[in-house]
């Protein structure tokens, strides 16, 4: 960012908390005792929120964005339908966010996580670890390869199943942009039943978490593709600084 641009970058635009999930959502039982009850304290963003950690492309290993191979034994590969997930990270003004770190994690094709607290009886895949990461290019674009995660049951209601999903963690340029979300897949009938997704009241906000099948990015005889664009918070842009009139 040039110095001239900096002079025009105001504070972060406030979050639309009605668009985000409700923190307290009783159908998602764990939220009941973990949702703060008092009103949040609002104030204009400061340098503490407008700055954030910097991650360089050099920290990435060659297979960090390939979950099919990054945990697999040499010559082997993760089991499951091969997919490419790609998209663009932009801010609320539509400008690409370059250098954004995306960390992703997911269950394997059978819906099983590689975690000692995981209780689902679906099989582990010895060649699938379940995590990957990528940093956006100058345009804000990213791409990684993985297997389609399976839906899985979870202890909430008596018979709750998560739709297939990939977890995303994102860093923008400022810590105010820090975000964790989940990507769902077009056409998954479990989306309508999920108490976690149900914490979002606006159907348009849910729709923005559902990645469409993208036949244009499919690799024939190899992998299907899904497109998932992500919007991080943006800063106010202004030529007018806050200052007393007449100065």
């Amino acid at each position: 960012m040039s110095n001239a641009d900096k002079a025009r970058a105001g504070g972060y635009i406030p979050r639309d908390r009605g668009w985000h999930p409700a923190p307290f959502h009783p159908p998602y039982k764990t939220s009941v005792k973990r949702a703060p009850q008092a009103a949040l304290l609002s104030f204009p963003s400061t340098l503490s929120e407008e700055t954030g950690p910097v991650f360089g492309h050099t920290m990435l290993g060659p297979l960090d964005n390939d979950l099919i191979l990054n945990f697999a034994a040499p010559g082997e590969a993760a089991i499951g339908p091969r997919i490419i997930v790609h998209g663009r990270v932009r801010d609320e003004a539509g400008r690409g966010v370059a250098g954004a770190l995306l960390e992703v994690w997911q269950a394997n094709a059978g819906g099983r996580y590689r975690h000692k607290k995981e209780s689902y009886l679906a099989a582990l895949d010895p060649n699938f670890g379940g995590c990957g990461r990528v940093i956006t290019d100058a345009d804000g674009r990213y791409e990684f390869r993985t297997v389609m995660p399976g839906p899985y049951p979870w202890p909430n209601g008596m018979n709750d199943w998560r739709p297939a999903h990939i977890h995303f963690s994102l860093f923008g340029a400022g810590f105010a942009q820090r975000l964790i979300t989940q990507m769902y897949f077009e056409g998954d009938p479990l989306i309508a039943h999920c108490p976690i997704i149900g914490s979002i009241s606006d159907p348009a906000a849910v729709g923005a978490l559902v990645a469409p099948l993208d036949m244009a990015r499919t690799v024939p005889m190899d992998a299907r593709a899904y497109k998932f664009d992500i919007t991080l918070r943006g800063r106010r842009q202004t030529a007018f600084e806050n200052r007393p009139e007449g100065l």
Partner: protein
Amino acid sequence: MVQPLDILKETSSQTAGPYVHIGCTPNITGIHGIYDADLGASMKTGPVKGQEITLTGTVYDGMGAALKDAMVEIWQADAAGIYPSAQDPRGSADPNFTGWGRSAGDMQTGAYRFETVKPGRVPFPDGRMQAPHVTFWIVARGINIGLHTRAYFADEPEANAEDPILTRIEHQSRIPTLLAEPDGSGGYRFDIHLQGPNETVFFDI
């Protein structure tokens, strides 16, 4: 009809879920060989300037139970009050200090721990100086949108008394929830309460 504003909506948050550590600290969960080291495990890449401190604490739910599945991140200025970020226009930060830490918490107790430095003061947008503080971000199963808060230092009463944010809190009785207390051995303790009479003040920033 009017013209559209062409403003996009921020992507909605979703809970980090119970397995956030697979994605963010895989080595701690026993997934080795994908990343050399977990990001944010160390905030120092060499000798750092300033007062070195440890910052420890526990996140409690509304029943007073410690969260063992949370992930806590902190972001702070260096000892001179400069952020190691291209977005800080005021100069270069300590090159051996990253400013950012990430903790999966202790497997048995859930307690987080950071080895860091005491931050310097950072200006508010109007030029007044803020008291030294560390920004916290907490995610876990059951938390639908990550929680921002700050740890200030209980042994900085003068700076805290003029801090532009602390002085704006309506219920001043809640300020102690934002104070890290010296533990007597060079460290500070900062517990976080998601609910209850000691509910931490969380920020909408």
